[in-house]
């Protein structure tokens, strides 16, 4: 119980740090980027008085309030779920835009994480079981190489090969063919969604597979040298039973925690994927916001991603304490 309480306190502290960073970064940046942006936009005639007022309130321009007052106002706004207004889609609130985009991110990331986790664990188990076999000597270094490829370049390459050269998948990006299909539970629409998500998901799986596999392989190698595995062999149990019921079941522990953490990254873990494929998730929103210098949006997206990651880490902590009694005993002793 004390362990759980400590963790809760820690995550509260982490959330506070994230929020505070989010507040202070634009105010501490040299040259006052927000004021510069407003100035630049005023010259072009983009800034209406209403917009200027909102921006001033959000970023503390031309106000006589002290930083502290601004800070607490910002905290209050956050508690009400108010992340400010987007500049590029003024006056749409940031939270509304994020709400529209986050679904696509979670779907894409979720599917990719589940596939990658399952395949990675399976490959890890098999390569550890058949260690130094042909399969292991080819698969393990190949996976190492794949994980060293810069992700966005892998994405660019696959987009070039499969979308440009072979024309199997759309080159333009988006989440479905908006011209020909309407959202709904029709087969065509779902097919279109799959067609648009396939390539991004594939590159995500390829780039993250190695991590799962290597962790599983290393942990499995350690487990295979345990006495109870030898005992199981001596009892003459079938290969499959020893592999999955005895060894893999214990070796999977580090990966389970990794999985819980990965659940948190499905919100913001595919930033680069969405940027390269123009997939309309939260990462693409961040990309556009950076390009348009939509600071409120940048901060809002960062905050949401951070909250998701922190939540998942908390979950992983709790899960670990639940799965591995040694953690609990040690802490309470």
């Amino acid at each position, binding site marked *: 119980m004390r362990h759980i309480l400590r963790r809760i306190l*820690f*995550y509260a*502290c*982490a959330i506070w*740090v*994230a929020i505070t*960073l*989010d507040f202070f*970064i*634009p105010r501490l*940046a*040299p*040259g006052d*980027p927000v004021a510069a942006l407003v100035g630049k936009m005023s010259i072009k005639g983009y800034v209406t008085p209403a917009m200027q007022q909102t921006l001033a309130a959000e970023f503390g321009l031309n106000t006589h309030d002290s930083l502290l007052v601004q800070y607490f106002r910002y905290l209050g706004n956050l508690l009400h779920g108010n992340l400010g207004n987007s500049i590029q889609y003024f006056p749409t609130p940031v939270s509304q835009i994020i709400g529209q985009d986050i679904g696509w991110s979670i779907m894409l990331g979720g599917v990719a994480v589940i596939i990658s986790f399952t395949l990675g664990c399976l490959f890890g188990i098999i390569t550890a079981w058949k260690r*130094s076999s042909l399969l292991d000597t080819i698969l393990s270094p190949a996976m*190492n*190489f794949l*994980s*060293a*490829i*810069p*992700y*966005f*370049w892998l994405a*660019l*390459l696959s*987009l*070039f090969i499969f979308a*440009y*050269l072979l024309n199997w998948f759309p*080159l333009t990006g988006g989440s479905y063919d908006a011209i020909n299909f309407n959202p709904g539970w029709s087969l065509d629409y779902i097919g279109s969604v799959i067609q648009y998500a396939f390539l991004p998901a594939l590159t995500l799986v390829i780039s993250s597979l190695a991590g799962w596999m290597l962790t599983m392989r*290393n942990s499995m*190698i*350690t487990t295979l*040298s345990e006495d109870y595995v030898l005992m199981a062999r001596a009892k003459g149990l079938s290969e499959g039973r020893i592999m999955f019921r005895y060894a893999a079941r214990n070796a999977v522990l580090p990966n389970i925690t990794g999985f819980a953490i990965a659940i948190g*990254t499905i919100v*913001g873990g595919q*930033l*680069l994927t969405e*940027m390269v494929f123009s997939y309309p998730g939260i990462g693409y929103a*961040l*990309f556009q916001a*950076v*390009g348009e*210098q939509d*600071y409120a949006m*940048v*901060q809002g*997206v*960062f905050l949401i*991603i*951070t909250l998701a*990651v*922190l939540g998942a*880490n908390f979950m992983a902590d709790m899960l670990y304490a639940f799965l591995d009694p040694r953690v609990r005993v040690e802490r309470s002793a």
Partner: protein
Amino acid sequence: MQTQEIIGPMGAAPIAFPPTDPFYARIQHALLTIWRAFTASPRVAVGSAIVSFFILVGLLGPLFMRYDPEATSNLFIAHPSAAHWLGTTVVGQDIFSQLINGTRTSVFWGLGTGLLVTLLSLVVGLVGGYFGGWIDDVLTLLTNVSLVLPALPLAIVLAAYFPRGPLTISLVIVFTNWSWQARVLRAQTLSMRSREFVTAARSCGERAWRIIFFEILPNEIGIVVAGYVSTTVYVVLTWAALEFLGLGDGTIPSWGSILYWAQQAGALGGGLWWWFVPPGACIAILGAGLSLINFGIDEIADPRLRKESSPKKLRKAAA
């Protein structure tokens, strides 16, 4: 095995030279151990060769450039040919020259930033681990908080606000990535703190900073090196990603900025593969080289991951 003495983080004797040795003998010894470390396993050897190649290109490459990398010409979007090995951009710049020119920025800022990250984590980890008490509590809290905050989104937010340029990217990466290694080093230092040689140094009246950096640090050099290498892989990748997003200074040549301009000019939709494939390949190969070094170090440090070698090899290694 010789190398285990140098790199093995645990157990092995600390690298302590008899104080009577003249300094050139020490340097010779150090060079020899470095050479042995680099040729310890085929993986490390291949990895070091790749990394050295890129360093050489970064140092000497611009001497062999046949075109001014920024000069435009009338030869737009030329396919790779004998004159332009990697073709030209939409404004007729020679991509091969740009690539060589960019190697310098990418490799040296990457290696340097990796060094900065390592230095910061070293100080935090060792100081926290050695002193314990409230100093350790504060530093551990900082480390753990920094560890759970998502690095790439935070880096993007920071880089978006601060002025564009390599220094900004470098500092942003340092700020978002120091914590992992700091945690590892703190744990290691905690276990070192109560060893005899530390107690001995303390009872000799040595000052704390001397004990930390001259007694404890040399014993953790294996972890520090491994951490440096893996950090640098990450730094190179993050660097390219941030520049690709347009958060770098597009006028400074580097692999990431070539990718950025290629993306801006629609190289993908136009099928200009020779524009965006080579810089990415360079990043991939450099990353693979560094990873190979790291796997080699892991193998030396963790015998369980090592492949059992044949008796013949064993005899050779022992000789």
